[in-house]
């Protein structure tokens, strides 16, 4: 077990970062969200929020979509550790691509079934979304009313589904079984996180295919483990961007970053980020329930704190729509809720780590 990055991982990072720098600078992300997603069903041709061109390149040329899929099923057979590095970079760019929702969450739900859909996802031909509220957690996998199955058809509504706006296939866990459908009605709602909007997914006697068994809590836990790396990326961007800004911005004829109170806050923030990196690495090196709970409770809060500090230390410009810091704040705040809040994960440690509550 190591907490460091391998050379292979660093190469993968460089490739992803290079592509994102070129194709997905903050200004491009801002422009994209300004067109805004509307209502649509999967059959409609309304432009979704996600950048599908970018996603095609990421999936096709760099091959990130198949990292978790075994080679014999058409993927790259890589480990969570490489996936984590990709997530760090996508977090740094708040890139509007369905990597986390399709290549991580949906793929992990599918993996035990070894379904052929995995190959299509791995190649980036299709993307999938898991029809579970993004606010669900490993400790409470179902939030909201459950979906019912009758005569092989699905009925019910799931709110807060991430990635559904760009999904070709929706995967629906019902009573320990996983179903796949391309006939769900997807209504994107105005979302706090502009770069990963959530949708309400409705099934009305929708035809679906039973794919296999599904350990939903396990899937959400693996997702939570990896979300910590995305949160690390968000926090790193916020710290780096703020450092660059306060070195450059002058007030009172001094760089703002020469004021001691600012320096001390940034030193503390750096120390939080250093520990977030260790926690994220540990959650992929040892994806035990304790490691995941630790990484999520720490990193979710650090990402929010980093984005809040970034906004404050940018002063007025940080409050404007044109500066990208708000995209990170919104991503961080939504990700704090996603897959369990820091408090959910801390409370889970009471039993996981043997720190019992009052009797």
């Amino acid at each position, binding site marked *: 077990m190591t907490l460091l990055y391998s050379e292979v991982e660093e190469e993968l990072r460089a490739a992803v970062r290079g592509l994102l720098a070129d194709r997905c600078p903050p200004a491009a992300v801002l422009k994209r969200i300004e067109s805004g997603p509307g209502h649509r069903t999967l059959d409609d041709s309304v432009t979704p929020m996600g950048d599908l061109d970018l996603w095609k390149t990421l999936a096709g040329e760099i091959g990130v979509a198949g990292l978790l899929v075994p080679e014999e099923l058409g993927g790259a057979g890589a480990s969570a550790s490489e996936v984590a590095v990709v997530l760090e970079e996508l977090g740094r760019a708040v890139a509007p691509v369905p990597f986390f929702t399709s290549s991580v969450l949906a793929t992990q739900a599918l993996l035990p079934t070894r379904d052929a859909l995995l190959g299509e996802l791995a190649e980036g031909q299709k993307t999938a979304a898991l029809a579970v509220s993004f606010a669900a957690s490993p400790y409470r996998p179902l939030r909201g009313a459950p979906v019912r199955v009758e005569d092989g058809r699905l009925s019910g509504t799931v709110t807060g589904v991430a990635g559904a706006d760009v999904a070709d296939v929706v995967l629906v866990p019902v009573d320990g079984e996983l179903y796949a459908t391309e006939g769900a009605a997807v209504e994107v*709602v105005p979302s706090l996180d502009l770069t990963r909007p959530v949708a309400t997914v409705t099934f009305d006697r929708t035809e679906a295919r039973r794919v296999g068994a599904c350990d939903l809590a396990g899937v959400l836990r693996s997702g939570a483990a990896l979300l910590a790396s995305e949160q690390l990326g968000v926090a790193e961007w916020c710290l780096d961007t703020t450092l660059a800004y306060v070195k450059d911005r*002058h007030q009172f004829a001094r760089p703002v970053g020469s*004021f001691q109170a600012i320096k001390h806050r940034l030193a503390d923030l750096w120390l939080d980020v250093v520990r977030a990196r260790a926690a994220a690495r540990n959650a992929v090196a040892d994806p035990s329930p304790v490691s995941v709970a630790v990484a999520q409770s720490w990193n979710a809060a650090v990402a929010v704190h980093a984005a809040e500090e970034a906004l*404050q230390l940018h002063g007025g410009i940080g409050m404007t729509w044109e500066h990208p810091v708000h995209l990170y704040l919104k991503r961080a*705040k939504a990700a704090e*809720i996603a897959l369990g*809040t820091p*408090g959910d994960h801390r*409370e889970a440690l009471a039993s996981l780590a043997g720190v019992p509550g009052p009797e």
Partner: protein
Amino acid sequence: MNEAEIKERVAAFLGTHDPGGDRLEFLRARFDAGLAWVWFPEGLGGLGVARELQQVVERELAGTPQINTGVQGIGLGMAAPTILAFGTEEQKRRFLRPLWTGEEIWCQLFSEPGAGSDLATLATRAVRDGDEWVVDGQKVWTSGAHHSRWGILVTRTDPEVPKHRGMTYFVCDMHAPGVEVRPLRQITGEAEFNEVFLTGVRLPDELRLGEVGDGWRVAQTTLMNERVAIGGAPVRRGGGMAGPVLDAWHAYPELRSHDLHQRLLALWVEAEVTRLSGARLREQLVAGHPGPEGSGMKLSFAKLNQALSGFEVEFRRDLGYDDWTFRRSEDVDFYGRGAGYRYLRAKGNSIEGGTSEILRNIIAERVLGLPSEPRVDKDVPWKDLPR
């Protein structure tokens, strides 16, 4: 003049002016009767009496047509005291009456993209050309600019001297050619403020307020009046930003957890002691012994608002947002909007009207008497400052 005499004045005024008649005429007459702001001089809407007596007037005139303190806020709170202190007789007569009645709305042209906390480095140039000044530059965070008749404007007139000494203060004609107002979209999606671009704007010298080069001192008067206005209203226990959080807490018992409960209790206590401090501060003001605590109230409320609204979003586990529409809004609608809006908008509380960092400096130096940091910008000509 005492309370009884003031009441007599008001009664006499009401005897000759019908509150049910034309609103504007009533307000103009009230101004002319010296019942607008009684502590202003006679002839300028006042009676030259103690400020406390205004409360009597307001009580007696409750129910009559009122001015709009929202949209007139900058005029009433910032422009008027500055004009009173530094304006010529002619300026006072020209501006104060329509300012008070609301016939002319005012905005503030101070902040610039490059001059936020360090206002005194501002770069908007004003160059004299005969009896006029030609103004070029960009201002930002200007609320109400799009329906303002006048703006209070600070400019750089001498770049060769240290920054505090080379500024001049003007009344800016917002209808003059070269004044362009653009809405400034915020992270909440809406535009509460504007950017104002000034390109070759010509202002006659009669619009100058105070002496050439004395703009910093004039601006201080304006800002002192701003600081007084921020963050002083009474709050009931469990009110303010705690209100919507507690409402949600009661409405969604299924979302509660021990983690959230303990954090909410701590925030409740902080909100309560902050509220009590505000109450104590107001008691001091009434007793005529204003304490230095005022400097801290905005700082406390900014922190609390941010903590409470961040807590609320987390508690509700709400990944949605109510409205991203890019539209103008005239003021902050904390309670009519969703938790996400409150969270985002409250981030501005520690930036607008003096950042929390600047307020901590002020508390440390002016209240606690701690020494200032070494200054590197005091004696350097403005044009040579590093930026």
